[in-house]
């Protein structure tokens, strides 16, 4: 991951203060000074809407943006331009090419990105990226993921049972949103039942906004150790799961452990936040909630609409490897492009009345899973999880409601994946 935060300069209120060895200070032109930085402040207004300042910048689908190190790059807010950038191989996903449009959560001083660690193919381009992707896509097909629906139903049922016993007031994140994706990843990777609690505990620390850097570091190492143990165990005695299958591929031990870690990291926080924030959004839109309750057949399109409306994984970064023209504008080689998924998914030219949550709309074509060669590998799993979990929750608790006023729901406004920190809910006990 990026440089040690202690070696980089500090950042405050979006003003770039780069590391000592960087001399960009003098090269920032007056024009660059006037350029906007990426708006990230969602505190005012609706918790489900993009920052108001970002919406204000969305009148132009592609514009110049100032990055934290003073780099002048681009911001894409239009749906068509976003698709064009993400599907064009002339834009690289390699971390070392990227400038950061905003400080990284928990690593506020970091202004430069290091190359992807071994096994992290999100930060690779073809053909290196293709090698990893090809080994994995067969494990994530629509058909295979649908076959997992029964397991999702089972895990969801167990979570709901536990909720019922603990209730009638619980934190939905802890009781429902976090465990379901965690159990499914364990299932997919083949984590034995006896290790799952240990696994989940460390993962919870990793994603805990309040946990300090030291605790997170420890949890990170613990997950790494568990993953290494797991890979060794699968090699010795293969079982019917993804990691066991991969032990017969040409991946090295280090790559295999890295891939396991990437699947964990990419598959947990994202789906968990969709389940948590998605439930919050449904509770705040009682008409939509009632429609879904009345017709669970709407679950699939509700999930697509929630993905569009909430766009929790945002933004996506790329860097131009050569000069590229997009929508009549020349993007120069070396420029970083920030694709604002949340803005593109609210592009009124693609989605009329974009700020309305409308489970009756056809939201397919949204970019919540990205687009192009890196489009989410786990999307079919995430879809199955959400399509099963939301209706099951609503069916089990017909009187489900927030246990606190909506403005008291703590938001992950500084995390890399957006969502709720916790979601206190309650219901009428029979």
């Amino acid at each position, binding site marked *: 991951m990026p440089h040690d935060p202690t070696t980089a300069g500090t950042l405050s209120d979006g003003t770039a203060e780069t590391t000592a060895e960087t001399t960009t200070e003098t090269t920032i032109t007056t024009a660059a000074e006037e350029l906007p930085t990426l708006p990230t402040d969602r505190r005012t207004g609706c918790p489900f809407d993009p920052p108001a300042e970002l919406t204000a910048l969305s009148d132009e689908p592609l514009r110049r943006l100032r990055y934290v190190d003073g780099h002048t790059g681009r911001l894409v807010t239009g749906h068509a331009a976003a698709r064009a950038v993400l*599907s064009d191989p002339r834009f690289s996903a390699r971390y070392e090419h990227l400038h950061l449009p905003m400080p990284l959560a928990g690593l506020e001083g970091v202004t430069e990105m290091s190359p992807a660690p071994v096994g992290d193919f999100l930060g690779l381009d073809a053909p290196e990226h293709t090698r990893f992707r090809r080994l994995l896509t*067969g494990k994530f*097909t629509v058909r295979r993921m649908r076959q997992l629906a029964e397991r999702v139903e089972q895990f969801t049922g167990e979570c709901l049972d536990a909720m019922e016993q603990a209730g009638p007031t619980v934190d939905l994140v802890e009781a429902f949103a976090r465990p379901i994706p965690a159990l499914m990843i364990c299932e997919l990777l083949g984590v034995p039942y006896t290790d799952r609690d240990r696994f989940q505990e460390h993962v919870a620390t990793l994603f805990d906004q309040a946990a300090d850097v030291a605790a997170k570091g420890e949890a990170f190492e613990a997950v790494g150790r568990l993953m290494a143990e797991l890979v060794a165990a699968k090699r010795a005695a293969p079982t019917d799961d993804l990691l066991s299958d991969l032990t017969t591929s040409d991946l090295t031990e280090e790559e295999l452990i890295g891939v396991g870690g990437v699947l964990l990291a990419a598959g947990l926080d994202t789906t968990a936040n969709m389940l948590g924030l998605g439930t919050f959004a449904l509770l705040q839109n009682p008409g939509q909630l009632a429609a879904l309750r009345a017709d669970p057949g709407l679950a699939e399109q509700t999930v697509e609409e929630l993905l569009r409306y909430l766009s929790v994984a945002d933004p996506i970064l790329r860097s131009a490897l050569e000069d590229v023209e997009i929508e009549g504008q020349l993007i120069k080689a070396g420029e970083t492009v920030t694709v604002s998924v949340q803005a593109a998914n609210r592009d009124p030219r693609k989605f009329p009345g974009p700020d309305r949550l409308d489970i009756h709309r056809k939201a397919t074509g949204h970019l919540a899973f990205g687009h192009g060669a890196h489009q989410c590998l786990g999307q079919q799993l995430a879809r199955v999880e959400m399509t099963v979990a939301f209706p099951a929750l609503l069916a089990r608790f017909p009187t489900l409601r927030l246990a606190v006023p909506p403005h008291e729901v703590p938001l992950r406004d500084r995390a890399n994946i957006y969502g709720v920190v916790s979601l206190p809910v309650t219901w009428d006990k029979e």
Partner: protein
Amino acid sequence: MSDPREPLRLSADRDRCVGAGMCALTAPGVFDQDDDEGLVVVLDAAPAAEHRAAARMAVGLCPAGAVALTSAEGTGA
């Protein structure tokens, strides 16, 4: 827009496919993914009228531009 009755031919480029499964999800009778690599398989290159809208949509949704559509030529209505 194109005439829904017009015959349709679909092709897929498995070298470009990234196995995201949008095609199999959107037009299940027309596209599938093989179990091994998860790459696109065209089940029905000339889908019947009722599958054409879904097939067209799948072409538009494919993140890799790996499925293409060519209306068959020379067939008058």
